[in-house]
């Protein structure tokens, strides 16, 4: 075990983001008008890191004595986080003026959150997972309450913080028990040790606690209660980030724990658990979303349902499932970023007037935004030519391969239910006349529009060439 300079070269994406945070801090310290610079700086920084991590995707290695891994799936996750964060930076530029949170610290926290996510995705040691998770979560707690004078924002921050720190306790306790059972914190050695002989019950309890903690972070059913309030209360650009790349980060850690299981003797050890979680999340999310009148709450419940679809891939516990989840996460990240981007443009000043009724007649007032929102709603509901369909397709195929047919059927049923509330927004936009009361002003923002269009292009591209992306993920 020794430290070489190659280790530092291999974690260059992490170092770049870290250096970016320090530069942003310095600029914020010494300049009064730093926000404009910082927004473009973080956009370019994350774009650069996204490009670099895809460029070095083949450089698979283990660094710092098995604490972190680089290359392969890790770099694909880096790409999702950083490209997502770049789009969030674009969406935020005008939104944070409107939401009266025009501070440079917003972007510093954004970059720090991304650094935490990248640590989580690259960790091969439970302690690294924990450090990354905390770095990400603490930034999110602060960002959720960034509108200091808004009661809802404060509520969101407090709820998220209290429940989040509680579940962090679960995760740490789970890690302690796993360590007690296996005598190691390195994920690979934990599983190699356990497959040799009979597994102690302590290990199962520890893993269960660990999974419970992460189910909170990914917003799966019995641990979802924070989701609607936090997503509604937080500034919309922050919600866009939490619900997409934040969820992807939590999933990357969960996937990391479960990947060594795929090659082991009983890969389906946790299948019953994940099956129940995913079935409950899908059904609950889809049915409760039907009753929502606020678009941010509706998207929050749909986010619970999507966590359920992704858990199908984990329940399948095979390679198709793993690559399916990565594809689904990328697709979900970009389609939800686009949807929340449009919500942030239409949202009223001060109060959150995000009722679905206020979208009436949007096709007349702003046909471009209406068309883009319709596209995102189609892909969220999983209609064929877009990315959302192939995300669902791959996880369903994985569960069929694993012989878990009924959960795939349940998933298809749940998507059918969810089509109702996604398509309702399209109906409201195109077939209902707007009354004067709901005729709120749509913010003019070229940068937000750019971010939304980039997400739309990505969603269409991923829908057109899903095979090549899955082949890329599968090749590691």
């Amino acid at each position, binding site marked *: 075990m020794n*430290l070489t300079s190659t280790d530092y070269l291999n974690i260059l994406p992490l170092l770049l983001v870290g250096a970016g945070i320090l530069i942003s801090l310095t600029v*914020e310290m010494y300049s009064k008008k730093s926000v404009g610079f910082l927004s473009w700086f973080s956009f370019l920084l994350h774009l650069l890191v996204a490009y670099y991590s895809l460029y070095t995707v083949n450089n698979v290695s283990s660094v710092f004595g098995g604490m972190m891994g680089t290359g392969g799936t890790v770099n694909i996750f880096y790409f999702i986080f950083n490209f997502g964060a770049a789009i969030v930076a674009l969406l935020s530029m005008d939104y944070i003026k409107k939401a009266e949170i025009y501070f440079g610290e917003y972007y510093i926290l954004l970059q720090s959150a991304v650094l935490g996510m990248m640590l989580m995705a690259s960790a091969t040691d439970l302690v690294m997972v924990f450090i990354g998770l905390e770095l990400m979560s603490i930034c999110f707690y602060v960002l959720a309450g960034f509108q200091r004078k808004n009661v809802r924002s404060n509520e969101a921050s407090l709820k998220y913080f209290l429940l989040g720190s509680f579940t962090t306790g679960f995760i740490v306790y789970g890690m302690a028990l796993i360590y007690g059972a296996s005598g190691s914190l390195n994920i690979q050695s934990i599983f190699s040790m356990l497959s040799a002989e009979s597994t102690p019950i302590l290990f199962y309890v520890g893993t269960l606690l660990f999974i419970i903690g992460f189910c909170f972070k990914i917003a799966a059913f019995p641990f979802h209660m924070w989701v609607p309030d936090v997503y509604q209360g937080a500034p919309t650009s922050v919600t866009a980030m939490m619900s997409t790349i934040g969820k992807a980060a939590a999933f990357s850690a969960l996937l990391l724990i479960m990947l060594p299981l795929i090659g082991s003797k009983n890969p389906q050890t946790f299948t019953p658990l994940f099956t129940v979680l995913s079935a409950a999340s899908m059904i609950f999310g889809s049915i409760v979303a039907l009753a929502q009148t606020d678009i941010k709450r509706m998207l929050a419940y749909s986010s619970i349902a999507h966590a359920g679809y992704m858990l199908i891939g984990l329940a399948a516990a095979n390679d198709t499932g793993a690559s399916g989840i990565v594809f689904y996460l990328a697709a979900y990240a970009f389609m939800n970023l686009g949807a929340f981007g449009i919500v942030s443009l239409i949202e009223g000043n001060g109060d959150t007037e995000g009722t679905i009724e206020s979208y009436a007649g949007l096709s007349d007032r702003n046909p471009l935004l209406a068309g883009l929102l319709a596209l995102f709603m189609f892909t969220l509901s999983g209609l064929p030519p877009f990315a959302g369909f192939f995300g669902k397709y791959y996880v369903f195929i994985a569960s069929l391969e694993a012989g878990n047919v009924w959960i795939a059927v349940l998933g298809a049923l749940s998507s059918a239910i969810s089509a109702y509330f996604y398509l309702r927004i399209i109906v409201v936009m195109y077939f209902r006349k707007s009354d004067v009361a709901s005729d709120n002003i749509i913010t003019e923002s070229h940068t937000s529009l750019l971010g939304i269009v980039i997400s739309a292009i990505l969603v269409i591209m991923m829908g057109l060439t899903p095979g090549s992306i899955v082949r890329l993920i599968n090749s590691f």
Partner: protein
Amino acid sequence: MTEFGKILAFMILAIVFVIVGIFTAYLIRPHRPTDEKLLTYECGENAQGSPWVRFNFRFYIVALIFLIFDVEIVLLVPWVLIYQEYGILGFLTGFIFIFLLVAGMIYEWRKGDLEWDRPESEKFMANTFKLPKLTLPAKKIKEEVTN
């Protein structure tokens, strides 16, 4: 008995000891309360008001700064013990850590969190330090006693 068993026995013994003590005292002591006796004990002084006053949030910032340097010491001690095994890179890695903390420190400094008296916030400080009006049971009891 295992080592943990001994600890458990010790804990049970401690709990039983306290409960028995309090219960015996309850049985044998005289029970003659007066208003003075029921006041919160503040080293013999009369109670000055509720402890639920709003603290200036600078106390929290100072506590946070303290925490940072507290953790710094905790993390630097193991580094000092083993950095030689990792050569010059291990040595420099420790300095990266210190540099990050210094950057945070400079940030706090520049943002004025280390300055206790800032002219522009005098009004705000006056508001936060104002004690609430004494409308508490303790005050009432005191008034009754003096009357």
